[in-house]
């Protein structure tokens, strides 16, 4: 049976369906959809919309992790780009705002990439620097307060709709297609996997591993900056203290749930985004369930553990053995 189906992605899809069913059970109107002011409205839309920042982060993170790296600074980069976007929103047009915010993400990515690929620092330490400093930079930009704006263009990025689909969701989808086209439409994805699999061997085989590593951190920075702009647009303000706080961990979790190994090598963009959706489906379900908030983290931990156990080759292997023994007994 399992041999007939594609092995990869099965566990994630199964997990998502189970969590969706649980959500439906705790909240009977979970799949209800209606139009509200030209925008689709319902819990499923909340899942997609609220899952957007982590989905965007995971798009960059999965490439970084594929090179055997990690980027802890994405949450702080979100705070920086959100702060820049909010400070410029009411005095400049959307193109300028976006260019400045995404440019900041690009610079942050270059910095991380420089430390890791040129100076050879360990990724976890190199990006820890910006994780700490970045939030400080964001606080300097906002002077420690929540900077609000009313610019309708920027607000549209967070709260608007294209044919009923919330703009953030459309952006995330666009970014997934774009990243997929660039990475899988060329040999780039393979080269990234080679770099993560064995950097030295790849280097000897003629892969520009340094350039690969620099490029993935830059892309990760840009994705994080975009997530930051959307998060700021959503609440019509930049909250440097809280924007993107701990989201780097959710992004790493999404990538891992998506089956990409922290030791680098083979990766899947689609499954990383699916991982982000699994996390958000669970979060929304917890909020809908009406359980006391003290349970939130516990439920989350148990579900994550279950999803990861589903993917564990040893455990599924053991289950196979148990099934075979039972089969022979019967």
């Amino acid at each position, binding site marked *: 049976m399992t041999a007939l189906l594609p092995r990869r992605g099965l566990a994630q899809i199964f997990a998502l369906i189970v969590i969706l069913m649980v959500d439906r059970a705790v*909240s009977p109107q979970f799949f209800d959809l209606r139009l509200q002011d030209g925008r689709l409205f319902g819990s499923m839309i909340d899942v997609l919309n609220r899952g957007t920042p982590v989905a965007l982060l995971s798009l960059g993170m999965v490439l970084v992790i594929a090179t055997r790296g990690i980027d802890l600074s994405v949450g702080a980069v979100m705070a920086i780009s959100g702060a820049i976007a909010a400070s410029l929103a009411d005095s400049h047009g959307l193109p300028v705002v976006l260019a400045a915010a995404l440019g900041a993400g690009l610079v942050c990515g270059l910095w991380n990439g420089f430390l890791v690929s040129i100076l050879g620092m360990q990724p976890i330490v190199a990006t820890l620097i910006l994780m700490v400093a970045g939030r400080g930079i964001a606080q300097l930009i906002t*002077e*420690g307060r929540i900077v609000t704006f009313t610019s309708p263009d920027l607000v549209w990025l967070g709260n608007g709709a294209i044919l009923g689909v919330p703009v953030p969701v459309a952006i995330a989808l666009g970014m997934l297609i774009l990243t997929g086209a660039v990475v899988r439409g060329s040999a780039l994805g393979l080269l990234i996997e080679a770099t993560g699999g064995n950097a030295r061997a790849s280097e000897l085989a003629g892969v520009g591993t340094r350039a690969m590593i620099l490029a993935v951190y830059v892309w990760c920075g840009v994705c994080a900056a975009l997530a930051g702009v959307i998060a700021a647009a959503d609440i019509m*303000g930049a*909250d440097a203290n809280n924007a993107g706080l701990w989201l780097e961990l959710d992004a790493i979790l999404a990538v891992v749930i998506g089956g990409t190994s922290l030791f680098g090598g083979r990766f899947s963009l689609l499954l990383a985004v699916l991982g982000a959706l699994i996390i958000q489906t669970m979060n929304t379900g917890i909020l809908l369930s*009406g359980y006391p*908030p*003290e349970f*939130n983290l516990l439920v989350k931990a148990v579900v994550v553990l279950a999803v990861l156990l589903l993917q564990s080759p040893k455990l599924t292997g053991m289950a196979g053995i148990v099934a075979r023994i039972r089969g022979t007994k019967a």
Partner: protein
Amino acid sequence: MTLKALFAASATAALLLSLPANAGQLTIGFSQIGSESGWRAAETSVSKQEAAKRQVNLKIADAQQKQENQIKAIRSFIAQNVDAIFLAPVVSTGWDAVLKEAKEAKIPVVLLDRDIDPSGKDLYLTAVTSDSVHEGAVAGEWLAKTVGEKACNVVELQGTVGASVATNRKKGFDSVVAKHPNLKVVRSQTGDFTRAKGKEVMESFIKAEGGGKSICAVYAHNDDMMVGAIQAMKEAGLKPGKDVLTVSIDAVPDIFKAMSAGEANATVELTPNMAGPALDVIAAFKDKGTVPPKWIQTESKLYTASDDPQKVYDSKKGLGY
């Protein structure tokens, strides 16, 4: 030897420099936590205003959220022989040694906004703090009075789980709800005191309560979560302030903006003016030797749409919130 002499000389010089300009003027050292939040920034600016109003020379030392910096600042205030020390303690323990030094130097200490461990009770003159249980109760009383006898389903946006402010603001509100059987908290979740989470949690409340039609009021443990919740309600086609009553705590400028737009109903102020009462206490203590009570509770003032929210907004927006 020369080094010691130099040190002594510079210490004397520092002491001379720090002497008040005129003999009657009080010099007070204020060890502030840092600028952790907008409210903290507002507290610092209001303290400066209140000191200027009373012609007190207020020296503020920013501790950047570190206790060792606060201890250093207090020691330097003692060395400068100030008339009194204000302390907003970043943590509640570890103050005994330095406060004893202040006591031996006969410099009265007033705690602002936060209390310290009971073991240090006799080491300070008084503590000026708000009562967060009372704040929750004031919010609850307003809601009870506004809805009257009508049945009302309330959804609650809690602060960060485990934070004492969140626990107390919930306790105060719940104590009022318990007295009014027509009030019922139907949903309660944490919004971590942030706008983004307040919005996300409110979105789920609206879905869980049949599109929000059965929600009669929202109670948020701080204004920021309420600002997020108001956006969520508007996006769901509800009219916050009319269809759904709102009451929250803190009185930050942005909630007054929402109030003047008719989208929020009430907020309970956590006053940034802790220094004002403290300055009055010190003046009375120095002049007549009046010993104040051990705890001075600040007023938890209720603001509603009838308090000219636009005016309050204008007066608050420059304070650094």
